[in-house]
């Protein structure tokens, strides 16, 4: 059988072993549920959409309207203050606002409310209107006085917009989703096969390099499915939340440039292949992932994404450009840069070539380690032995 066919057979096996339609649907529903639940909780933390307030002393601020923003004001007199405070305590009222002469006021609420800033804004607006009414300055004149100097800024290297930054954060989060998924399955697959004493049977049928190549491809595909599943849940969330709450997330301009997305995806995929080759070799050196100290290596791919998050603040800094070129950080930093700033194409090409080159070296070394590590039962090889394998095999 040709090597390519064997690799495809192993990749197919790994993919079908871990990607099951029922689990994918369940995963999509759970991710969607978490997003919706998170948004709902965040909205709850922001307080109710409408707040009932009792106002005593409203005559001191007559410009405060009864329906200011999200607040519904009910005017009352000071003789009802105790009863109204009781109602606040019993949650019948959102708060009791006491307005005093001279532009001062007090708010009685159960706790410092999440809508306090909104109320302060409404009170400030009403206070300004009240003072304007008392002075000879018209609102138009005041607006002209407060208007900033009309300075047009012509950006030579414009900073990324909110949409671009959100897109980059989402992309990096998806990279992490894929990495976590891949790491989990690699360790389950490789150490499971070692513990189940399957290695000898497989290695007798196909070369170890073919086996590890198939594993890397299959588990990369599993990771991509996890990423796509998360993307699908995210799109569903956007559609539903827009319908329910009117949430609109600005889209980055980069989505209109397919070549940027393709380049970013390619680099992310190359990064997966690189890290999965590395981690498959590490897993082959473990007897039990729960007790082996070598499980610390799983943090390396996660750490490699940290510079990418920092890069969002200054994507053109020299150190960011360097980490965007050099593997393995380039797999995360360069896609982030592509989504938030203009990157010369030669940088993208160089980053890809370097990532592929180092990936091939790691793949070859991983194959050597994998071949002997998978056949070593009962103990973990020392680092000295691993170095020897790399030299001799």
């Amino acid at each position, binding site marked *: *059988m040709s090597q390519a066919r*064997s690799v495809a*057979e*192993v990749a197919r*096996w790994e993919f079908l*072993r871990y990607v099951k339609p029922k689990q994918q649907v369940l995963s999509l529903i759970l991710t969607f549920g978490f997003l919706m639940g998170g948004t709902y909780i965040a909205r709850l933390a922001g307080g109710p959409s409408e707040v009932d307030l009792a106002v005593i002393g409203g005559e001191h601020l007559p410009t405060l309207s009864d329906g200011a923003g999200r607040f519904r004001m009910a005017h009352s007199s000071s003789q009802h203050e105790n009863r109204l405070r009781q109602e606040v305590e019993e949650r019948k009222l959102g708060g009791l606002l006491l307005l005093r002469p001279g532009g001062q006021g007090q708010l009685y609420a159960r706790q410092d409310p999440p809508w306090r800033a909104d109320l302060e804004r409404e009170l400030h607006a009403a206070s300004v209107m009240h003072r304007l009414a008392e002075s000879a300055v018209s609102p138009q004149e005041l607006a002209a006085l407060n208007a900033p100097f009309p300075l047009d800024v012509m950006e030579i290297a414009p900073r990324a917009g909110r949409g671009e930054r959100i897109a980059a954060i989402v992309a990096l989060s998806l990279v992490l989703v894929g990495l976590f998924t891949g790491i989990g399955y690699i360790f389950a697959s490789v150490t499971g*096969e070692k513990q*189940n*004493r*399957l290695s*000898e*049977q*497989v*290695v*007798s*049928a*196909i070369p170890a390099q073919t086996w590890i190549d198939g594993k890397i491809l299959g588990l990369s595909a599993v990771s991509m499915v996890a990423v796509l599943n998360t993307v699908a849940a995210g799109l569903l969330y956007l559609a539903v939340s827009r319908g329910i709450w009117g949430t609109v997330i600005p889209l980055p301009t980069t989505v209109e440039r397919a070549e940027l997305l393709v380049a970013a995806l390619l680099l992310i995929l190359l990064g997966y292949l690189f890290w999965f080759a590395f981690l498959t070799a590490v897993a082959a050196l473990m007897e039990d992932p729960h007790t082996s100290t070598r499980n610390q290596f799983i943090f390396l791919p996660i750490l490699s994404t940290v510079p990418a998050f920092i890069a969002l603040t200054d994507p053109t800094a020299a150190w960011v450009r360097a980490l965007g070129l050099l593997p393995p950080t380039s797999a995360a930093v360069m896609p982030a840069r592509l989504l938030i700033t203009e990157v010369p194409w030669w940088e993208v090409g160089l980053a890809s070539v370097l990532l592929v080159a180092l990936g091939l070296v790691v793949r070859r070394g991983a194959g050597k380690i994998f071949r002997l590590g998978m*056949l070593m*039962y009962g103990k973990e090889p020392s680092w000295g032995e691993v170095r020897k394998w790399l030299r001799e095999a």
Partner: protein
Amino acid sequence: MALPLVGVDSVSKTFGRVRAVEAFSMEVGAGELVALVGPNGAGKTTMLRMIIGMLRPDSGRIAYGLDGSPSESVDSGRIGYLPEERGLYTDVPVRRVLIYFAALRGMGRPEAARQASHWLDRLDLGDRAGEPVGSLSKGNQQKVQFLSAILHRPVLAVLDEPFSGLDPLNQEFFLDLIRELRASGTTVLFSAHQMQLVERLADRVIVIREGESLGQGTLEDWRRRWRTGLRLRLRLRETPDLAPLRSTPGVRDVQETPEGDLEVALEGDGALGHLLQDISRYHILELRTEEVTLHEIYLRAVGGEAGTMEVEA
């Protein structure tokens, strides 16, 4: 001269300071059922792993004639291997596991599926084909393990300790299975510790000790080489004097059993005639001949009496 399926020529293998196999030579011809026997650590598994191409010899050469033409490289599609360290994907359905291993050996998926159905029915596991391997009993898992090694219809099946961990009933079952495999055209090379099974199964026996070959041949060859072809069990009315019996030409040993019988070990041509002459003066109640078992030959061969053997070159 017919090309052997496998020709091992003076192969050696060392792990660190441990000499696993030393100048070992053997051949396996088409259609044979060959046993490789030896004590633990003798180098059997290392030798089998080198034959299937999993390990490379430090020196010597292994040649193959699996497709009728000589080759220095092993074609894994024509070899089936049952390792001593066994394991299966316990969370995967039986049929899928079998098809996967057959596909890795180069068999097309549709044909692998057909073979899987055939063999699973043959082993009364047809109705369990869709269940995870882990749900099967240990005996049935061993059947699936065996199938995973031979489903692709190899030219040569290399079985490392195929009877290990089996109860007597399953040992008989696997004995028949291996015979059936050979009858279907597959040559079988296996290692084992169960000499009574090897004796019943193997055409030829190769003994290995401390990595070196102590010889190879049929059971008859071994008996001839050890000149221990016959053992006699006698029941006499009288109690005989053992000393003259022991000095009879060709009599190697005479022992009295707890039941009062005599067990006489003979070696060399004409020994039986001399003995019968000597005991003709006694009243013989019962006389039985027993052949020396492979188990006994094995114990003597690996137990330090190798120097007395005439090892076939």
